[in-house]
C-alpha cells in the first residue's frame, strides 16, 4: 500500500469493532493506528457486555446458594461485601482492557490516545497532532438514549453505566425503565442482590426481536423470581425526594397515571449511534438523521476508502456484530474478498435462565412468506437440566416446511448462549433439522435438547409426547 500516508488504516474507536479491525488489519500486514478517546475496549469491555456478566454471575451465585438447600447444602449468615464486588468486576475489566492494549503492542498497532476528528478525507486530528491514512474505519459506537423527564445523575437515576456500580446498601426498590436486554439483565442482578425490582416497557411485549413463545416463558421465569413486569407503561417524570425517587408511571393503554417511589431508577430505553466530535462531514461521510453512518456489505461508507462498523453503522447494536464487521472491513482493505454475509446475528439476555436466539422468529418467518414447522423441547424433560437445578425454559426450532431448512432457534434455559454455537453454525451451514437430529449429542447435556427439538420438528422427539 502507498507509503505517502502515515498509516494504511486508521481506526477510530477501540471498542470491539475497532480493536478487531485494527488487530486483523495488522495480522494482514498493514500499518495500523487506532484512536481512542476513552479506554480501549469501548462500551463492551468497560461498561457493557463484560461488567454486566460479572455482576450477573455474582447475583446468580447468591441464588444458587439458596437453591443448594434442595440437596441439603445450607449456609450460615451470608454477607455481601459490595466494595469487593465492585472491585472484582473492575479487576476483570482492567485485565481485559489491559489485554487489548498488550495485543495492540504485540501486533504493532499504534494506539493514539485522544479524540479523532476528520480534517479531510485522508486526515484526522488526534489531540494536537494530525495523521494521514489511506483508509479509515469509523467504529465510534453508541451511547445510552436519554429519556425526557428522567435526568440521569448516575446516583439515584442512572443509565447502564451508573447501574454497573452497585451501591451500598443495595437499593430496596428499583425501577428499570425499558424492558429490553439491558433492562432485564440489570433487573436480574439487582433482584438477586436483594432489591425489589419493577421493569416497565412501553411496548406490549418485552425483549423486542425475540420469539413470542420464548419471551412468554422468559417473562414467566423472571416473574417467578420476583421481578414485576409492566408492559405498555411509560415513565413520564421523576422527582427526587427524601424518601426516594417519585416516578410518574403511565399506562399507555388506559392513560392511567400513578406515582411510585423507588430508591434507584435505571433508564435503559435504547442506544443511539455516536458521532460527536468526529467531524464526519469534513471527510464527506454521510451521517443519517438518526446519527448512523451506513455501510455496504464490505462496510464501506458513502466514501470508498472510509469504512463504518459496529453500533455506529447499524442495528442491532451488539458486540459480535461489531467484531464481524471489523474483521470484514480490515480484510477488504487488505484486498481480500470479505463480506458481511451472515445469515443471522444471535441475541442473548444473560439472565438465569438465559434467553438466546439466532435466526428468524416464528412470526418473522411467517411474515417473510415461509411455510413453517416448529419443534419444541422443554428443559423440564432434560435429565441434565434437572441435575443442574435449572429446568425452566425450552428449545424452540423454526424450520421451513418443505425443505426442512433451519430458519431460527430460540432457547430459554441454562447455558443457552453456549448452545447458540451449534444453532448459529447450523444456520450458516444451511443445515436442516434432520442434520441436527442425526448428529449424536453427548448424554447427558443441555445440548441434547437442541437435538430433541429438531426431532420434535418431525414429531419424533423421544422424551416428550409429540402432539
Amino acid at each position, binding site marked *: 500500500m502507498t507509503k505517502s500516508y502515515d498509516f494504511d488504516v486508521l481506526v477510530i474507536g477501540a471498542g470491539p469493532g475497532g480493536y478487531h479491525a485494527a488487530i486483523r488489519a495488522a495480522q494482514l500486514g498493514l500499518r495500523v493506528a487506532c484512536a481512542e478517546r476513552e479506554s480501549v475496549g469501548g462500551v463492551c469491555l468497560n461498561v457493557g457486555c463484560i461488567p454486566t456478566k460479572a455482576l450477573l454471575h455474582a447475583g446468580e451465585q447468591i441464588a444458587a446458594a439458596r437453591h443448594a438447600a434442595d440437596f441439603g447444602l445450607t449456609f450460615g449468615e451470608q454477607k455481601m461485601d459490595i466494595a469487593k464486588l465492585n472491585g472484582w468486576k473492575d479487576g476483570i475489566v482492567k485485565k481485559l482492557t489491559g489485554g487489548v492494549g498488550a495485543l495492540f503492542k504485540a501486533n504493532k498497532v499504534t494506539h493514539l490516545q485522544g479524540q479523532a476528528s476528520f480534517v479531510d478525507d485522508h486526515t484526522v486530528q488526534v489531540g494536537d497532532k494530525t495523521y494521514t491514512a489511506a483508509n479509515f474505519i469509523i467504529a465510534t459506537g453508541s451511547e445510552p438514549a436519554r429519556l425526557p423527564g428522567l435526568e440521569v445523575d448516575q446516583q439515584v437515576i442512572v443509565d447502564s453505566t451508573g447501574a454497573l456500580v452497585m451501591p451500598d446498601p443495595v437499593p430496596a426498590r428499583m425501577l428499570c425503565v425499558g424492558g429490553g436486554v439491558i433492562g432485564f439483565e440489570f433487573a436480574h442482578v439487582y433482584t438477586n442482590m436483594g432489591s425489589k425490582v419493577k421493569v416497565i416497557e412501553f411496548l406490549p411485549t418485552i425483549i423486542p426481536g425475540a420469539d413470542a413463545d420464548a419471551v412468554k416463558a422468559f417473562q414467566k421465569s423472571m416473574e417467578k423470581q420476583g421481578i414485576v413486569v409492566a408492559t405498555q407503561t411509560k415513565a413520564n417524570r421523576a422527582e427526587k425526594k427524601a424518601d426516594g425517587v417519585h416516578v410518574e408511571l403511565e399506562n399507555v393503554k388506559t392513560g392511567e397515571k400513578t406515582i411510585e417511589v423507588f430508591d434507584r431508577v435505571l433508564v435503559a430505553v435504547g442506544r443511539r449511534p455516536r458521532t460527536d466530535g468526529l467531524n464526519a462531514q469534513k471527510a464527506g461521510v454521510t451521517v443519517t438523521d438518526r446519527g448512523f453512518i451506513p455501510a455496504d456489505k464490505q462496510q464501506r461508507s458513502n466514501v470508498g476508502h472510509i469504512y463504518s462498523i459496529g453500533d455506529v453503522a447499524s442495528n442491532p447494536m451488539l458486540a459480535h456484530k461489531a467484531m464481524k464487521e471489523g474483521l470484514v472491513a480490515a480484510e477488504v482493505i487488505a484486498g*481480500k474478498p470479505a463480506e458481511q454475509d451472515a445469515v443471522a446475528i444471535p441475541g442473548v439476555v444473560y439472565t438465569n435462565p438465559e434467553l438466546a436466539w439466532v435466526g428468524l422468529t416464528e412470526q418473522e418467518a411467517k411474515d417473510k412468506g415461509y411455510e413453517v414447522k416448529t419443534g419444541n423441547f422443554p428443559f423440564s424433560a432434560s435429565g441434565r437440566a434437572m441435575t443442574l437445578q435449572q429446568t425452566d425454559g425450552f428449545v424452540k426450532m423454526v424450520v421451513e416446511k418443505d425443505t426442512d*431448512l433451519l430458519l431460527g432457534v430460540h432457547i430459554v434455559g441454562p447455558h443457552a448462549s453456549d448452545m447458540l454455537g451449534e444453532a448459529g453454525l447450523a444456520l450458516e451451514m*444451511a443445515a436442516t433439522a434432520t442434520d441436527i437430529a442425526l448428529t449424536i449429542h453427548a448424554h447427558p447435556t443441555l445440548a441434547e435438547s437442541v437435538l430433541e427439538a429438531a426431532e420434535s420438528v418431525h414429531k419424533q422427539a423421544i422424551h416428550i409426547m409429540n402432539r
Partner: protein
Amino acid sequence: QPAPQAPPQMPARNDGRVLAVPAARQLARELGVDLTRVQGSGPNGRIRVSDVLGHSQAASAAPAQPAA
C-alpha cells in the same frame, strides 16, 4: 470472440437465498464464482467448498477460443 457459454442459473429459492456453507461463500468470492450458477451437492442444493472448486475447474477447462 464468442462469449464462453455461461452455465445455467440454478432455480432460485423463494426467499432469494443461495444455500452455501460459509467457506464456500468465501471461496466463491475469491475465485469470482457466481454461486447462483453452482450446482450444490448437499440437501436442498446446499453448496459446499468442493462444489465451488468443481464448478470453477469445469469453467476453466471449458475450451476457450484463442484471441484472434
